[in-house]
């Protein structure tokens, strides 16, 4: 069955970008705020429908990666979007979580001024995230990361008359622009060496000598169009990945590029904080996973053991592991001493992204298929869990902030007793993030621990447990301060819970609980079945095949 050219992949970023840029034009005619809320809701639902459709097509109908070729150009010449198991899962995650965030925005931003600009940027954010997870082209990845970055800068600066928000945006955007320019430079290096920016083509060329024997048609197809590599590919690849990792760790807020996150996430409007912490930082982790597993993965030309038995890719993996470990420990430690509830959650994001990067770095030269599969599954599962958990936690903090007007947990003492549903959601989401057994957070941390143990990184496995133990103090401090003291008299009778956020909280509680229950009854095996082959030769072979099979179908 031919899987080439499915419009359902390519339409989502285009449609959402178009929808976003129509809003400023509409704002000249329509002044009613309700219209923009409903407009964003409709496009959120459309995007979710298409991501569900793509998930269904990849995992149930075809059972292999599918592709869309923009303008009908074949792969290394034109831009191609490839959706494999990993992309389909993360695309679905973006669709679901962004829909929740849009619904929450309708309540939270109901009477805000400038709502049309807010939704322009929010829809652009969703378009760029789906573009990042679906793209099969390095330069398109750069364009989408820039689009993600600039819409995120704009959203952080939404309250543009607040000194803190502008200062956070300055920090975020100045260094962010530098990091993405470095990523462009890395693409220049890759193009100068390999003569292509297509991921499948790069994956073939990086595995050049041996893949031509087992998969000769791919080798023949790509070398006919983009030739062979030129100069010293090992050195150029090392430089390119070094530059690219700077951009990716900046996006993912990994130490030492974490400094912008604790300022930028709290200063944004709360729905945006949920989107930034829940999804945007994950895009850096996804890009790292793609580059270090699919494109320059195991048995590529940078994975040849040199001095001390370490290959160049092992050095990169160790860098990712160590930076992840430092982020996990530092994020958990600094979280304890904060008083601002959104800042606590922001530091918790740094710690969790550190855990995700430790999972990415678990695969070394000579790792078996079981280790690769376990590591990818653990990383993706932790991304899913953290995304829902952190979005819920930020939404809950927004409900407290909206009710009392303060972010300081010492001033929120006892407020939780007045808002029973919100406080239940707070406690459950923090337990989920901490990793308490009935919830999904426990199982993903367990999987990360297993993956690190399987690859022999015992020290880092201990650091993972340590980070969870330290972060418990921070989470408990929030719960104790908000729930345990008596009800504050000045808020009694004033605070009441609104129906929209309460319903959302109940749905999200159901999601995080059911993730935990599903992972007991075989959900993890299902996820591993979908994403586990990423980074191993059969998965990469399917990925490449979906790109080259289109030419055979139109010939």
């Amino acid at each position, binding site marked *: 069955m031919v899987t080439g050219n499915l419009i359902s992949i390519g339409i989502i970023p285009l449609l959402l970008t178009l929808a976003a840029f129509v809003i400023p034009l509409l704002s000249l005619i329509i002044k009613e705020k309700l219209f923009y809320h409903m407009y964003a809701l409709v496009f959120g639902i459309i995007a979710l429908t298409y991501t569900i459709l793509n998930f269904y097509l990849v995992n149930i109908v075809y059972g292999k990666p599918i592709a869309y070729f923009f303008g009908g150009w074949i792969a290394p010449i034109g831009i191609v979007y490839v959706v494999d198991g990993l992309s389909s899962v993360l695309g679905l995650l973006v669709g679901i979580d962004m829909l929740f965030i849009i619904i929450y925005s309708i309540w939270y931003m109901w009477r805000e001024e400038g709502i049309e600009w807010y939704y322009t940027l929010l829809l652009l954010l969703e378009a760029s995230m789906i573009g990042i997870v679906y793209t099969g082209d390095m330069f398109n990845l750069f364009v989408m990361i820039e689009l993600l970055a600039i819409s995120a800068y704009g959203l952080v600066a939404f309250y543009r008359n607040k000194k803190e928000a*502008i200062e956070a945006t*300055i920090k975020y*955007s*100045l260094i962010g*622009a*530098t990091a993405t*320019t470095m990523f462009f430079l890395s693409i*220049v290096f890759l*193009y100068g060496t390999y003569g292509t*920016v297509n991921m499948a083509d790069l994956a073939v060329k990086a595995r050049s000598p041996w893949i031509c024997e087992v998969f000769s048609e791919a080798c023949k197809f790509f070398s006919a169009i983009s030739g062979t590599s030129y100069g010293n590919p090992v050195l150029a690849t090392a430089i390119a990945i070094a530059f690219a990792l700077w951009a990716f760790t900046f996006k993912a807020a990994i130490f030492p590029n974490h400094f912008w996150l604790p300022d930028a996430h709290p200063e944004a409007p709360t729905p945006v904080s949920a989107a930034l912490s829940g999804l945007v930082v994950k895009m850096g982790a996804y890009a790292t996973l793609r580059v270090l597993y699919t494109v320059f993965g195991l048995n590529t030309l940078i994975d040849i053991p040199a001095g001390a038995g370490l290959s160049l890719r092992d050095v990169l993996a160790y860098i990712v592991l160590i930076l992840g470990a430092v982020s996990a420990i530092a994020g958990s430690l600094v979280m304890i001493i904060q008083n601002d509830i959104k800042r606590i959650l922001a530091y918790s994001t740094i710690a969790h992204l550190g855990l995700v990067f430790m999972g990415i770095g678990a695969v070394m030269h000579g790792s078996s298929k079981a280790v690769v599969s376990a590591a990818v599954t653990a990383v993706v599962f932790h991304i899913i869990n953290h995304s829902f958990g952190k979005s819920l936690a930020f939404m809950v903090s927004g409900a407290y902030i909206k009710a009392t007007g303060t972010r300081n947990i010492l001033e929120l003492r006892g407020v939780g007793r007045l808002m029973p549903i919100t406080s239940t959601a707070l406690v459950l989401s923090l337990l989920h993030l901490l990793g308490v057994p009935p919830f999904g957070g426990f199982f993903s941390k367990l999987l990360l621990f297993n993956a690190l143990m399987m690859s022999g990184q015992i020290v880092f496995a201990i650091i993972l447990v340590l980070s969870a133990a330290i972060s418990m103090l921070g989470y408990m401090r929030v719960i104790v301060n908000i729930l345990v003291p008596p009800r504050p008299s000045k808020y009694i009778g004033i605070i009441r819970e609104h129906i929209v956020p309460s319903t959302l909280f109940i749905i999200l509680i159901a999601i995080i609980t059911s993730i935990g229950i599903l992972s007991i009854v075989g959900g993890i095996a299902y996820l591993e079945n979908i994403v586990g082959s990423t980074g191993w030769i059969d998965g990469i072979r399917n990925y490449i095949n979906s790109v080259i099979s289109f030419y055979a179908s139109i010939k």
Partner: protein
Amino acid sequence: MEFPIIVASVIVVSLYVNLGIALYGIFARPSLVKKLLAITILSDTANAFAVLVGYRWPRTGTPQPPVLMNTTNYNESIKYYVEHAVDPLPQALVLTAIVIGLAVTLFIAFIIIQYYRLHGTVDVRKTKALSR
């Protein structure tokens, strides 16, 4: 050494120096405007690198823009084109990167203006609204 290699080396070295100057400007200068200028230098350097990667010095004659000039005699003109034209793809990448860079630069310029309105200065050492 041949003349093209000397020229190419000089260009590459000067681009690396440019890169260093830009990074110094971004990280060490206190003025936000100077930082913005350094960012534009950085992105221009990256774009120049891209153009350099696509450039080539043919064995005979001079390099040609990637446009098929002569369409009457296909075989001859395509042969000449393949031997002499520079690579067009990096130029397309640079065009896209310039447009994106324009948007980012405009955004940062606006944010710096807003910063100046709120603080009365663009010196990052004198203002500190966020506590750590």
